């Protein structure tokens, strides 16, 4: 008997456990970690806004208008200066984070429910249901999002809830496309066939067999749509047809600072950079999640 036969091979020893692989993928994925960290900071800033700034974002101080940020030589206790109406820029930025996050979450939630319902139904039932859903996706894609959103918000009035709802009703297409494809894949697997054979009810199959298995992709799309909604809200508000003044929306802040851009460029730069950073963080997190959860999606 050869002794070396009883020894495990090098490959068996070097093979990491699945949990270790996941851990390594998550912590080895610097993009994902940076995204999560930055997003966490912005969320905390939004939640604790009243604690982080002693100023109110709506209180005007017409004597101290457009005071530059203290790091640019502004001699006041306004860390990021004040805007054209003398409102504290830091306070508006912090409360503006609430607006962006609310819009992002709310719109991603509404569109997520619509898109997932449509996509899962199309993928699971196929046939006519699939044909109708595919058709609706085509119709939706043909509608110019910015134009329709602008028009509807202009008609209904630009409150936070209206903007979030309108965006939610428009951005379900990617959910539907991805959920349809993922459901098609899952529905062919043996355990779904097994559940059908033993007579499990359709809603039960959908909720306990299909949904958990498409959840990874759902979360990835949700993060990307959240970023998308935040960018669109900012654009709408920038055009003056989204969230209305005096609500502190970052897009609105950029619009208000635009005319002063030549002299006080920080009025535009500060909200622009924070908006860019927030969207970047959410995208990094979404991209990272996709890489971490999909075995083949490493490129």
């Amino acid at each position, binding site marked *: 008997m050869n002794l070396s036969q009883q020894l495990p091979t090098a490959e068996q020893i070097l093979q990491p456990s699945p949990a270790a692989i996941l851990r390594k993928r998550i912590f080895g994925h610097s*993009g994902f970690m940076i995204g999560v960290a930055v997003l966490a900071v912005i969320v905390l800033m939004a939640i604790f806004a009243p604690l982080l700034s002693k100023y109110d974002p709506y209180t005007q101080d017409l004597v101290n208008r457009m005071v530059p940020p203290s790091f640019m030589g502004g001699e006041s206790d306004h860390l990021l200066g004040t805007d054209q109406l003398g409102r504290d820029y830091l306070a508006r930025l912090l409360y503006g984070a609430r607006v962006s996050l609310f819009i992002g979450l709310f719109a991603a939630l509404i569109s997520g429910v619509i898109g997932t319902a449509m996509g899962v139904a199309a993928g699971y039932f196929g046939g006519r249901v699939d044909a109708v859903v595919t*058709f609706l996706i*085509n*119709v939706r*894609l*043909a*509608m*110019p*999002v*910015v*134009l*329709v959103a*602008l*028009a*509807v918000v*202009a*008609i*209904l009035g630009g409150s936070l809830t209206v903007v979030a709802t309108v965006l939610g009703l428009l951005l379900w297409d990617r959910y539907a496309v991805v959920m349809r494809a993922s459901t098609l894949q899952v529905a062919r697997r043996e355990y779904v066939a097994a559940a059908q054979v033993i007579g499990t009810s359709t809603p039960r199959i959908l909720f306990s067999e299909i949904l958990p298995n498409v959840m990874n992709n759902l979360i990835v799309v949700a993060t990307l749509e959240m*970023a998308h909604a935040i*960018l669109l809200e*900012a*654009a709408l508000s*920038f*055009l*003056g*047809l989204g969230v209305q003044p005096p609500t502190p929306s970052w*897009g609105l802040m*950029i619009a208000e600072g*635009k005319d002063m*851009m*030549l002299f006080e*460029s920080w009025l*535009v*730069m500060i909200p*622009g950079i924070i*908006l*860019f950073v927030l*969207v*970047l963080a959410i*995208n*990094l997190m979404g*991209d990272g999640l996709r890489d971490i959860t999909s075995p083949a999606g490493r*490129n």
Partner: protein
Amino acid sequence: MLGFILKRLGLALLVALTVSFISFSLLYLSGDPATAIAGESANAQDVQAIRELYGFDRPMLVQYFDWLWNALRFDFGQSYYFKLPVADLIADRLGVTMRLGLAAISFALIVAIPLGVVAAMRPNSLIDKLALFLSVAGQAMPSFWFALVLISVFSIKLGLVPASGSTSWRHFILPTVVLGYYAMPAIMRLTRAGMLEVLSSDYIRTARAKGASEGRVMFRHALRNAIIPVVSLAAVQMGFMLGGSIVVESIFALHGAGFLAWESISRNDLPTVQALILVFSMFYIVFTLLADIVNAWLDPRMRAA
């Protein structure tokens, strides 16, 4: 091939019809369009007069078919604000938007495709990482803010290009960059992914075994196959760009259809808004239809089907 085109054409028509109905009915969200036109100072009599003048007193479906029938003959009614035929207004402005859209998609393709190819040829190299960084940053960059930054650097500080207007080609440079940059990440990523997949395929090995040069392998054998999905994407992006032109045109004061859309929405000019939604949708539908046909022509497997 003919069967495929006919089927695809039928679908496009059905989508167009549905879109037209949605864009028509969207503007009845406010309740009574007559009140909107008459303005706040109007009395009940004026509103009633307007209602009858524009035919708002008829059933909605009748109004829709009436509107659709006229739209098919390029008659979108009178603009409330400009007091001109909507069709003339749009026709007047569309040229600028088309020029901008074409310039932007060309700019995006010219930069993004070579970048995607190089990134795929040398995965994880410096240039791959740079391309990846640009694409991630591009997706996160608010286009209106990017436009403002470009204006402040290239127009205000350096004085190289005009910041607003649409009278010369130089007015189109910054808008093209802003609109094109927005479409680049997706094109770059798809090119890179497509090239990576194709480069690991057996027929690329065959081409190398024949003695083909690296350049020939890359462009004649690999890119030819990897480019097929990019064509569809470019058409979709082109459709999105027309929508995105609203933001860009209003910042750069380019008097195109996007600028018109912004003006008419701000002024509650419903017929113009309706017509613009329909026109932009039609462009998207036509672009994707063309892309599908080009695709079928590029991919022999689809040509036969």
